[in-house]
């Protein structure tokens, strides 16, 4: 097939793939590389379910082309836990019941990870605005904000 050869790093591992010039990073991650934890809710950058961290930037992978991954570092939800040890955000999402249906959860975890990397001690308002690009229809966000607050506190202590 006519495709662009891309060499990249995903969750710390080297990855190579061929993709069409107009193929999104989301399509590549899900359909070519099998990283189904990256969810598609809209395909237009409005819901944040497909959030990944590209180098040090939080992006909607549906708005990034697969070809743009060349030589970059991509972090997805699949890379958050270390073996069977959950990331503090994952653990706190479970403890606070910050998910109901769970479809938005991978995107929220990635967005929260990016937020805490840049601001380890955010106020409630900073969390709310930091996560405003991610839609959740089940929880009303209350328990998500509390889980992020709790995880931030654990991560600062660690």
């Amino acid at each position, binding site marked *: 097939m006519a495709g662009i050869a891309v060499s990249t790093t995903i969750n710390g591992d080297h990855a190579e793939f061929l993709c069409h010039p107009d193929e999104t990073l989301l399509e590549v991650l899900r359909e070519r590389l099998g990283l189904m934890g990256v969810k598609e809710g809209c*395909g237009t950058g409005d*819901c944040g379910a497909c959030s990944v961290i590209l180098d040090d930037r939080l992006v909607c992978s549906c708005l990034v082309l697969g070809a743009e991954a060349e030589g970059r570092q991509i972090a997805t939800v699949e890379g958050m836990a270390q073996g069977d040890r959950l990331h503090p955000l994952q653990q706190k999402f479970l403890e606070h*019941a910050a998910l109901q*249906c769970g479809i938005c959860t*991978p995107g929220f975890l990635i967005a929260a990870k990016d937020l805490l990397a840049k601001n380890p001690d955010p106020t409630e308002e900073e969390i709310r605005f930091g996560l405003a690009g*991610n839609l959740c229809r089940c929880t009303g966000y209350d328990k998500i904000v509390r889980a992020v607050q709790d995880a931030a506190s654990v991560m600062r202590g660690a």
Partner: protein
Amino acid sequence: MTFDPSHAARSFSSVGTRPIRPDGVDKVTGRARYGADFNMPGQLIGRILRSPHAHAVIRKIDTSKAEQFPGVKAVVTAADLPDLTDGDTSMYDILDNCMARNKALYDGHAVAAVAAIDARTAKQALKLIDVEYELLPHVTDVDQAFAADAPLINETIFTTGVDPKPDRASNVSMRSQFGHGDVDAGMAEADFVVARTFKTEQTHQGYIEPHACVANVSSDGTADLWVCTQGHFVYRQHCAQLLGLEASRLRVTSSEIGGGFGGKTHVWAEPVALALSRKAGRPVKLVMTRDEVFRATGPTSATSIDVKIGAMKDGTIIAADATLRYSCGPYAGSWAEVGAMTAFACYKLENVRTVGYEVLVNRPKTAAYRAPSAPMAAFAVESAIDELAKKVGMDAVDFRIKNAAQEGTKASYGPVYGPIGIGPTLEAVKNHPHMKASLGKNQGRGMACGFWFNFGGQTCTDLNIGMDGTVSLAVGTVDVGGSRASLSLVAAEELGIDYAQVRAVIADTSSLGYNDMTDGSRGTFSSSMATISAARNAIKILRARAAQMWDIPVEDVTWEKGHAVAKGETHGNLPNLSLKEIAAASGTTGGPIAGHSEIVADGAGVSFATHICDIEVDPETGATKVLRYTVVQDAGKAVHPTYVEGQYQGGAAQGIGWALNEEYIYGKDGRLQNAGFLDYRIPVCSDLPMIDTQILEIPNPNHPYGVRGVGETSIVPPLAAVANAVSNAVGVRMQHIPMSPPRILAALEA
């Protein structure tokens, strides 16, 4: 099964605790598989062609070019889904909605579909299908469609529920009426009367996961369907009927579901995927785009509601009257009937009348949305109640307390109430610190009540005890928000074992008896009843096996805290046998140990909630900010209180979005103008405050632990609570939601 009063005083060991859900780790690590996360070897990708017209006769569909396009393996139209509904009009409507037969009835109505080797090819092939439309006049507004001279959508619809029977077709499919007493006489006696007309716009359930399925039909007549749904057994029935398959040969597996809220209660694209797979002889994956989800699935009714309520000087409501017009899309439904039943359900009324009209419009087929139809009626009634309280000169909460329904009250929809929670939620709100907090400039506080019936339904569970003493609970009600956790708690409670020893899974349609879908707040209510009964059946067997092991009569064996206990003078010295020990010996005491249950879980308890909302309005821009929000609701018994809180908070957030932002916007051309999350704006994290919750527990007399449904009632009060808050903040009665900034400005300038 009835409530065991001893449970009221009993201290539960598992029920009421807050453990981590069994499906949690998979959901935070990305391993949980939703509708679109499943692929089959050799699968094709399906795509649907949709009408760009609101109302048009389909003259001709030419699929020949698409069929010849390289990589296309099947093209289907209505001709590939022949009518097998045998006079079942509601199934015929579902079939016609899945694939338009003679007319396209709304912008987004499916007219053809293709299956191709990849999404790119399928998309290109859609463009090669020629559809010849003959445009018809359309109508998308509920009031315009109600008018006598409106364009007629379905010439076979004659209004039911009117006498004499109408002699000409109209867009009004049904009139329904409820109530008792003499409303006109009561109204004439009233010292104060409020009469208003309210409008609500159409909203979507807004689940984040688009509809998705993988269908695989084999040439031997067997088929598999992987799908995100609120009811895989219901989807099996629908698909089997529409495709002419035997139900037992169609195995439906429900994926994890990324939200439903009523929108995944009947089939949309699944029969199309099956028809494509049958024709192509290969598996077909079909995932809707977000645009398709908005244009073709879901939405709730748009409404127009007249309310008139009269009260005496002492604050007693003497008469209440409402006329409710609900749009239902282009097919008849009964959404207005439900609005008419729920409208005044919170109150004790001597004279009450509600009349509902169901109105066809050229918009997508209306689907249930969390306590369907109740929020709009509550918005109209609770707004008028607030205004009437002011006229009478009473506090909004006291006025409602004075008129609240109670045990023995004749409900506005007919029957007499048993024990109910409206009074207690109002008392809790009256005493809540939120009601006493001070407000600043341009800020207002509103409160409102809400009611929902809750339902039970057909339910089946299997409880299997493994040789190692762990328990596998197979459930047939799809888990939409944590019910596997609550049902594991219930199984642990009954068996007297640890929550960690129980693992609940959702079984596919070939592995369990029929289950109604997860709707009507029934998931935990009905499956917990079935689980209790399955566990009790298993305990009977466990006791018999222990009796064998001890060689004593089974009557002398009781079950206590996860152990068989030998009773009676002669057996007093036998050490208790644990579930694990009995399970380990099961191979030689009669084989596997299991408990099954097949029930109709009737007797769900009606549910009430009262909400408080503080809001700030910017008078220059009309922008609003929710400052504080409190939910008080009766749960009967909260099995997993954290997830009960989650239901309260989630429903409130959806209601706030409905009240302030969300609406379908149609152009004059009858096309939907905001089919995406950017322009159809659901609340985001920065739009909302923390949502406080207070769980009341007034036991449901028809459930062994007192459980009522909790999923839906929380979306009923917010529209009115927010509207009352805005009205109080700006000093003008808001009558049209959503209260978007332009509408608030218009109300201020009027």
